[in-house]
């Protein structure tokens, strides 16, 4: 009976140990880049952190020229690497579950670079020029005109406030988000309000299919920090 308990305790201890992030021995990587705003002005004191699963491996703040460079540890094992810019970190949001509440300096947008492959051999990551635009919000009203029994399917394409970029891609400015599936509105569920957190100077593309007719698109420019658009059908 005693041996059984001891075995159980050892098993639990081993399980906890296995769940911990293992930092690779005898290894360092270098993370560097340059942060500017949409007018090409350098942004100082913006945080940049590398980490996995809630463990921060390296961090720095941009200097007065917007430049940053820091040494990071590397994780050993099956963990994706994140490099986050202008985002706070805690144990729960390292898997990409960020929202605008995690943005440290709310005057600017944020970025999350990710590398999902494990056993990474890269000696470092040069993020190049990172443009942090001002955030902008679109409030989209989709209203069904009373008396009409139309059906509407719609989809939104936009640049999110927290831009997610695959470190394996060649284009670090490519972070357009679009919902894969169309949302469906009918007479029972016809008037909705959608809020989109995006970036100032970009535009939101509203794709819609009305009564199974060919798809149409409307480009909604975000020229203010708060924008409103009403679509009636």
């Amino acid at each position, binding site marked *: 009976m005693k041996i059984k308990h001891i075995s159980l305790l050892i098993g639990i201890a081993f399980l906890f140990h296995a769940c*911990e*992030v*293992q*930092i*690779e*021995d*005898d*290894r*360092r*990587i*270098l993370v560097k880049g340059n942060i500017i705003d949409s007018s090409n002005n350098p942004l100082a004191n913006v945080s940049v952190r590398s980490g996995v699963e809630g*463990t*921060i*491996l*390296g*961090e*720095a703040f941009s200097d007065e020229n917007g430049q940053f*460079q*820091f*040494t*990071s*540890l590397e994780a*050993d094992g099956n963990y994706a690497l994140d490099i986050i810019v202008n985002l706070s970190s805690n144990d729960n949001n390292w898997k990409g579950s960020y929202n605008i509440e995690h943005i440290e300096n709310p005057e600017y947008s944020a970025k999350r670079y990710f590398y999902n492959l494990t056993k990474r051999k890269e*000696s*470092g990551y040069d993020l190049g020029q990172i443009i942090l635009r001002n955030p902008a919000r679109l409030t989209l009203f989709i209203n069904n005109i009373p008396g009409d029994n139309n059906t509407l399917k719609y989809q939104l394409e936009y640049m999110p406030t927290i831009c997610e970029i695959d470190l394996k891609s060649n284009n670090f400015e490519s972070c357009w988000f679009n919902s894969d599936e169309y949302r469906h509105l009918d007479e029972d569920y016809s008037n909705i309000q959608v809020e989109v957190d995006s970036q100032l100077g970009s535009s939101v593309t509203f794709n819609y299919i009305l009564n199974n007719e060919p798809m149409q698109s409307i480009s909604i420019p975000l020229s203010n920090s708060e924008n409103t658009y009403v679509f009636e059908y």
Partner: protein
Amino acid sequence: MFLNIKILLVALLISSLAMAQESGVHENIDSSYPQESTSQGKNIGNITIGPYIPSAIGNNFVNDGMGTKIGVRLSVKFIVLKSFYIGPYFSTFKADVTNRELLGNYNRTTNFLAGAVVGYEKRINDITFNLGIGLGRAIYHNKAQKNNFKDTAIALSLNPEVSYRISTYIGLYLAPEFRHDFMNIDVPDELNDTFNDVNYFTISFGLRINLGSAYKNL
């Protein structure tokens, strides 16, 4: 740190002078013994143990990004051929990480060095001079917020040592050390200068235990 070293050196100097005066009295008494008696005892070797004060020098991750603390050194020497000796050597010290942008996000390290030292010993009355070369494996046990990891190195050192006999079996030693750690850390080219190697100048002092009876008839 430098202030502490100065205080230490002054203290050692004063204590050495005081002991030197005492030894003068001993010499007068001991001079009645025949000279041959000094060679009658057997010098097996000695054990030295004491504080270890490391100071990293040059551009490297320890000097630029850590604050080192006083550690401990243990050295055992066995005379194997006339005045030549060989023996195991251990040292350890802790350091706090002060520059995480340069080193990575961890808090502190504990350095262990285990190796061997070979050298030559010359005894003049109560004072013994040693010059040794050490080779060993150094491990930096690093502690991050939740995780541990390690950096490893091959350590090569030059170990001069001077010691003063208080009694047959007990003495004091002072050992400056020049140590070079060849680090095994895999880094990008930009960080090679920082992480490839570390130079230390260390000082150790403390107790020397003489093994054998070589000092009995001095």
